[in-house]
């Protein structure tokens, strides 16, 4: 097991990197110059807020055990039984940390739907309540422990449903409640720095190997089914690593092909988006399909998401950075396609996680597996959509979501953080912008000079 623990340390750090900085870069590049810092801060701050709630009550509420597994059959486990990781052995802390990074990125993903316009304080309050009321219960119920799973056991290897559908629907609902940015559909809101976005997408891909390949679970029955620990470790890792890779490649190509047809050019933003769409779709399915299945899922994710991101303009929904179009649509595709191309010869089939006697429709199964997958999607849509709506409205009518209209036009970076991202002259400073030292800091400088 030594190798496995070493791998889990690496995998956990890789998933941390997906939020800070990968997602912050991916999203930050797509915003305008005057709001890039706030966009990146939403990811950074989400990680910190969620992380603290996770060790205080999140692990206890969502998992509630000592080890990697999740076996309590209630709707939620007791949030206070293992308060502050009471009763978790030190040797199992790495499993807590691994799951913590998933909760954090799920919240951070939502921020893309409400870019440029939300008070940092409201975002912090939302993050803490949302993981508590939405993420932990859904993780508990989809990943094998909760009340829902005992009724409709379904397959979600690394969180296509728990993370991506969940964040996608929450982002869509919040964008609806908070309303569009000032000037939406009227003013140009094109990405300010696509090199940041490309770097972010590349780092997401890299980190996603921790996300997917780190999600394998060992138990006595799984190692026995594979014929030993090493056989499962190597076999399952090989398949999930391979599927994650080929699906992502196909999705990038699919996205580029679709936008070439629809808009005439294959773009770098399309390549970056296609990578993420493919990773999202293969997240629930990387352990349940073979290589051909991964190619099917990845290709469809690229093609469909490239088309889906255009829909927000028809509905007038300012899902600013396409959390719905990429994460909700891609997540649903990945979850549902398991019902077609899932095979019980896959790692999860060997593990015995396919509901007994079921198989994908293309591999001789009946509609049972597909039905369970659809129920998992539906459960998440209803739970996450409903509670996000209540929470979103509660914040709207108490502390409020939005910065003032003037502040939004001026730029949220200056309003919320008192900073500007770039100092290339002109607006941010430089020769022409001319930032001069204020009284307070020149006093400090004078004092320093005196001491020297």
């Amino acid at each position, binding site marked *: 097991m030594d190798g496995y623990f070493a791998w889990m340390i690496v995998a956990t750090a890789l998933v941390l990197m997906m939020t800070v900085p990968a997602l912050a870069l991916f999203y930050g590049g797509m915003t305008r110059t005057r709001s890039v810092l706030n966009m990146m801060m939403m990811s950074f701050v989400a990680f910190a807020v969620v992380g603290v709630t996770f060790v205080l009550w999140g692990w206890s509420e969502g998992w509630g055990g000592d080890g990697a597994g999740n076996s309590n059959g209630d709707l939620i486990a007791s949030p206070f039984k293992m308060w502050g990781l009471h009763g978790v052995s030190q040797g199992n802390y790495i499993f807590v940390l691994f799951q913590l990074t998933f909760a954090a990125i799920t919240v951070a993903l939502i921020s893309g739907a409400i870019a440029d316009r939300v008070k940092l304080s409201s975002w912090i309050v939302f993050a803490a309540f949302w993981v508590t009321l939405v993420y932990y219960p859904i993780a508990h119920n989809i990943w094998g422990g909760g009340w829902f799973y005992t009724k409709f056991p379904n397959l979600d290897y690394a969180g296509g449903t728990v993370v991506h559908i969940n964040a996608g629907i929450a982002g869509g609902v919040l964008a609806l409640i908070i309303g569009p940015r000032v000037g939406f559909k009227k003013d140009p809101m*094109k990405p300010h720095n696509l090199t940041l976005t490309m770097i972010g997408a590349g780092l997401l891909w890299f980190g996603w190997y921790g996300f997917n390949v780190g999600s394998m679970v060992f138990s006595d029955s799984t190692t026995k089914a594979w014929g030993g620990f090493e056989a499962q470790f190597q076999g399952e890792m090989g398949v999930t690593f391979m599927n994650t890779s080929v699906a992502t490649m196909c999705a990038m190509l699919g996205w580029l092909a679709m*936008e070439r047809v*629809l*808009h005439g050019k294959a773009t770098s933003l399309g390549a970056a*988006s296609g990578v993420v769409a493919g990773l999202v779709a293969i997240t629930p399915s990387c352990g349940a399909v073979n290589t051909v299945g991964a190619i099917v899922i990845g290709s469809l994710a690229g093609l469909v998401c490239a088309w889906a991101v*255009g829909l927000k*303009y028809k509905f007038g929904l300012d899902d600013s950075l*396409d959390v719905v179009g990429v994460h909700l649509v891609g997540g649903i595709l990945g979850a549902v396609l398991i019902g077609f191309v899932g095979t019980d010869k896959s790692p999860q089939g060997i593990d015995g996680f396919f509901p007994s006697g079921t198989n994908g429709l293309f591999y001789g199964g009946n509609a049972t597996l597909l039905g369970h997958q659809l129920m998992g999607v539906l459960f998440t849509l209803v739970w996450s959509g409903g509670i996000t709506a209540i929470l979103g409205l509660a914040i709207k009518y108490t502390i409020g979501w939005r910065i003032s209209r003037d502040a939004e036009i001026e730029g949220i970076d200056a309003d919320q953080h008192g900073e500007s991202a770039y100092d290339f002259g002109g607006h941010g400073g430089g020769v022409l912008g001319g930032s001069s030292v204020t009284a307070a800091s020149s006093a400090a400088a004078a004092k320093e000079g005196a001491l020297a």
Partner: protein
Amino acid sequence: MKQITAVVKPFKLDDVKAALEVLGVQGLTVSEVQGFGRQRGHTEVYRGAEYTVDFVPKVRIDVVVSDDDVDKLVAAIVEAARTGKIGDGKVWVTPVEALVRVRTGERDGDAI
């Protein structure tokens, strides 16, 4: 004295500079500018959203010369900057009333 101002495609800057140097011009000022003429702007598409970019990046070159040199220098700039495609830019000439070299205080013709 005249000031020649040329607004040209950015990648033509080096050609124009070389052409002026050959004819003995000893100094010029360049700035990055944006604008449009009959070329208008262009469109960019990001995730299905189409943006019209009205202002196209250009380079502006300003050089002050004596009256005798104006015609040949304008001809040289036009020659060097031309690609024959739409969007090549414009060159115009304006009179200059006075000129002072800051370091020495030399004026007008001596300061060119």
